[in-house]
């Protein structure tokens, strides 16, 4: 068996976002006898179908692709769940940045700045405990007022809110944008 070819095919399938077709393999590797290519692909699939592997190579849409084996789904779900807890969506990040810099602030104020209704983002930040409710504003409807939490400081490694980069500091960093090519 041609070990080097096997290793290279493994790499190509690993990095290809869409199922890798035999034509594409040929294009990358140059001419290879059909039967040799097929034999190596079979060997590669056989190798990963062994029980000690959690990932496998499957044929899909006319090509080859790495997927996970279905029997490990429960662990995959747990991993994704844990990753999700540590991450923010773009909307969440926008909302959080406004609360951080404008606190104390109401949902309506955040929505006005983002030009997008932010109820859902605020709810999700509350669940992640990155923000907290600190009371109500003396205004029509007495809306709830939000502030960032202790956990927010922890998440971003800050000692206090005074450590937040100031607007003019960020502006200075960002505005020199197209000046030099480093």
């Amino acid at each position: 068996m041609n070990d080097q070819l096997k290793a290279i095919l493994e790499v190509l399938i690993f990095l290809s976002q869409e199922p890798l077709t035999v034509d594409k393999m040929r294009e990358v590797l140059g001419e290879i006898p059909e039967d040799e290519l097929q034999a190596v692909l079979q060997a590669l699939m056989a190798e990963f179908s062994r029980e000690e592997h959690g990932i496998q190579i499957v044929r899909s849409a006319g090509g080859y692709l790495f997927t996970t084996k279905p029997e490990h789904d429960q662990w995959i779900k747990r991993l994704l769940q844990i990753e999700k807890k540590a991450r923010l969506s773009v909307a969440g990040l926008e909302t959080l940045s406004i609360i951080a810099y404008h606190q104390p602030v109401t949902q309506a104020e955040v929505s006005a700045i983002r030009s997008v209704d932010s109820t859902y983002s605020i709810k999700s930040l509350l669940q992640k405990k990155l923000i907290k409710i600190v009371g109500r504003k003396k205004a029509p409807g007495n809306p709830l007022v939000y502030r960032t939490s202790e956990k927010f400081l922890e998440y971003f490694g800050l000692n206090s809110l005074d450590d937040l980069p100031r607007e003019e500091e960020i502006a200075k960093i960002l505005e020199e944008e197209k000046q030099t090519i480093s």
Partner: protein
Amino acid sequence: MEQENQGCPEPSEETEVSQQAAGDGYQVKLEFFEGPLDLLLFLIRKKKIDINDIPMAVITRDYLDYLEKKDQINLDREAEFLFIASLLIYIKSQMLLPREQETLAEDDPRQMLIDRLLEFQKIKIASSLLREKEEVELQCWRRTFRPPLEKPDELELLQVSLFDLAETFFLIMKRKERENLRIIKGKDVSAEEKLKEIIDYLGKNGSMDFLDYFSSQDSLEEALVSFFCLLELIKNHLVIATQEELFQTIRVWLRKDKTPHQVHGSSHE
């Protein structure tokens, strides 16, 4: 083992040569002095001088000679080169002053300069060691995508840093400012024209910095259309776009194996 190689053609010599040239790129650039300490170290090395015992008169003269020639220094850094020049002259004059006693080692007016040069030299070496690691790592590719999963929406979540937080806020405020000032333009932008424009540009230039392109658009509408066109191109596998993280430049390449007329073809191959 050698026989086993047969199935895999070796890369052409051409590839090898171009890779090597790329690898040497940064060393060539070192001949051009980024900053004053680069120049000083170069002179010290050229004269085979001991860094702990710099003959100030010689080095100062050489340094000033280079400044006059200027063709090898980074002119954006002229002020910084001049600052070190004045420091050299100052040290030289200090050493010429008559002293009551023999100079003690710790009184050596050169000491500050020596310390700086030694520190800088260490950094240069550390840089070159990191460069070697970078070289290896750039050859180790990782997947930036996941295999098809049940709930793909979870992929959009980001890991964010303090800088992202501040930058996001700043960008929202900018956007806000612009919204207030926006002039509504009559120009209609068609997605078709925009697609063609992007593909033509890529055909000519190979790749593009999408954020630059995006911000060079005349109106918000036009910018948005160009962004949707990019999404369309990615969806149809006509271009490769890479963005390591949110807000970083999106680099776009044309896939050489596809042709533009496939744009409106079905996305299921």
